[in-house]
């Protein structure tokens, strides 16, 4: 279990993490979502004590990370798979970690097998590893001490589709056995498939959090027309909160029937009309983090999400 309370961190005048509070629970996979530079990695570094917080507190398994007596055996951490000595072999990197945690050498072989690195690959130096192999090694290092909690920053980066599937199953099993998983990503599909709970961060602030089902249920109806802005205006005139998102799509907070009737009454030909479930996370993500996006995604946001 991870408890983050009113965490803030700024660099000079720039607030990277602004009063962030959330809980990652045992038995669940918590997805930590946000655009690049939103504060995900900073928050995670603060969690494991690599960066000091200006205020607020993080507790992992009830303690500050720095107070964990042998952190590797309680919390598996993968912040950057490339942050390894390029001249060490994969096996040596796991061996060093195992020695630090006082684990038997046999654990290294078990783990190499678990993350599907062959003995030949394990004896290669990490400078010759692909990003996907580094991720596997990093996940291996995180799992080595049989921890209760996993903190993973973008672990799916560089994995091929089979690798992503493998990692998803691995994290699911870990959570099903009562473990806590906090996983950051900007890959929405990945998060949508695996996460039970979501924490969405934008510009250092939490813009939404809750179970995936709750958050996506709030997504309402997705309706599309040639001119999304006009459609949104028409729906607004009919008393339905609506905001255009992308490519003529409009996210409306009303059921299918009301939205369809309103569009019909306004004489707008609808090209798509459905419950905003599958695409919901992306729409929600773009809308919630609109202010902090680098690229404006043809969104004339009316901040329907801020409420």
């Amino acid at each position, binding site marked *: 279990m991870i408890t*983050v309370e009113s965490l803030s961190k700024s660099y000079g005048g720039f607030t990277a993490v602004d009063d962030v509070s959330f809980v990652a629970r045992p038995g669940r996979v918590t997805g930590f979502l946000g655009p690049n530079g939103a504060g995900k990695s900073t928050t995670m570094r603060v969690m494991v004590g690599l960066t000091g917080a200006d205020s607020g507190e993080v507790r992992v398994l009830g303690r500050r990370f720095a107070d964990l007596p042998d952190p590797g055996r309680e919390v598996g951490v993968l912040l*950057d798979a490339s*942050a*390894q000595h390029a001249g060490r072999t994969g096996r040596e990197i796991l061996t060093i*970690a195992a020695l*630090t*945690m006082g684990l038997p050498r046999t654990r290294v072989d078990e783990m190499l097998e678990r993350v599907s690195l062959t003995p030949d690959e394990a004896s290669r130096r990490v400078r010759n590893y692909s990003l996907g192999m580094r991720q596997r090694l990093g996940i291996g290092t995180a799992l080595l001490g049989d921890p209760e909690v996993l903190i993973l920053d973008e672990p799916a980066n560089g994995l091929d589709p089979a690798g992503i599937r493998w990692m998803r199953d691995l994290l699911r099993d870990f959570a099903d056995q009562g473990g806590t998983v906090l996983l950051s990503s900007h890959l929405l599909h990945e998060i949508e498939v695996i996460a039970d709970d979501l924490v969405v961060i934008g510009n250092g602030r939490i813009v939404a959090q*809750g179970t995936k089902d709750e958050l996506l249920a*709030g997504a309402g109806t997705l309706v599309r027309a040639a001119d999304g802005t006009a459609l949104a205006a028409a729906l607004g005139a009919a008393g339905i909160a609506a905001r255009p998102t992308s490519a003529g799509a409009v996210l409306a907070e009303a059921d299918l029937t009301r939205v369809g009737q309103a569009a019909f009454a306004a004489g707008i030909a609808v090209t798509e009309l459905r419950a905003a479930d599958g695409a919901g996370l992306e729409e929600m993500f773009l809308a919630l983090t609109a202010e902090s996006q680098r690229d404006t995604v043809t969104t004339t946001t009316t901040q329907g*999400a801020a409420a």
Partner: protein
Amino acid sequence: MNTTTLTEHAVEAVVPAETPRRRPAPSRTPFRRVQYVELRKMFDTRSGFWLMASIVITSVIATVVTVLAGDRDTLTFDSFAAAVGSPMSIILPIIGVLAVTSEWSQRTSLTTFTLVPGRSRVLTAKLANTLLIGFLGMVIALGVGALGNLVCSMITGVDAQWDISAATFAQIVLANELGMLLGFALGLLFRSSPAAIVGYFVVNLVLPGLSGALASAQQWWADNAGWFDLNQSRFLLFDSTLTGQEWAQLGVTTALWIVLPLLVGTRLVLRSEVK
């Protein structure tokens, strides 16, 4: 749309569930484990291994060259000690620098400090290992020099001259350990291998020249440089018996050039953000 969920979670965040862990906490990582791992990390890469091996290799080369090229009839243990000492005075401080900076240049500090969040424990282990390697390195280097001295006496048929006392030996080791500590301190200060190594050579090769120039121009500096110039008092350790004042000067310059950077560098590492 998320007003309700936000407040719910905010409340829960303030009052966390009563049982945050399922298992009892493990015992604290013992220091000897940290120290062993740090020692292993100094040898387990090609560059690290060859840096360590170069202690032996350069000692052998220096000794062989001394036997072959020196005036064999006049060679004593002191000549061999001087011959193996000069590569050591370069290699050992570099070992001191890299013991610290490799964590940053290779970004392994992310893993190191998440597995052992007590950064001062890691630094203490590194410092202890550095001093240990310095001592063993000097014993090995002087041992190779002693072999050279024996071989030389066998060639010439003259009895080998053992003209280094235990006290002088200890002084030579001390001088080299101080060099390593300076390297270690610069490593902590810069956390960058090139910057710290360049810094070491500036302190050791450039500053003596500047100090000499200043001394020839200014009488006060010529009289008192010993209190400020680390090299002046440290170099005395290699071949003379120090007077009380010279020991005092060594203490003062060590405090200024080694202890102070060590403290400032340690503070920087303990507080800095690890990325």
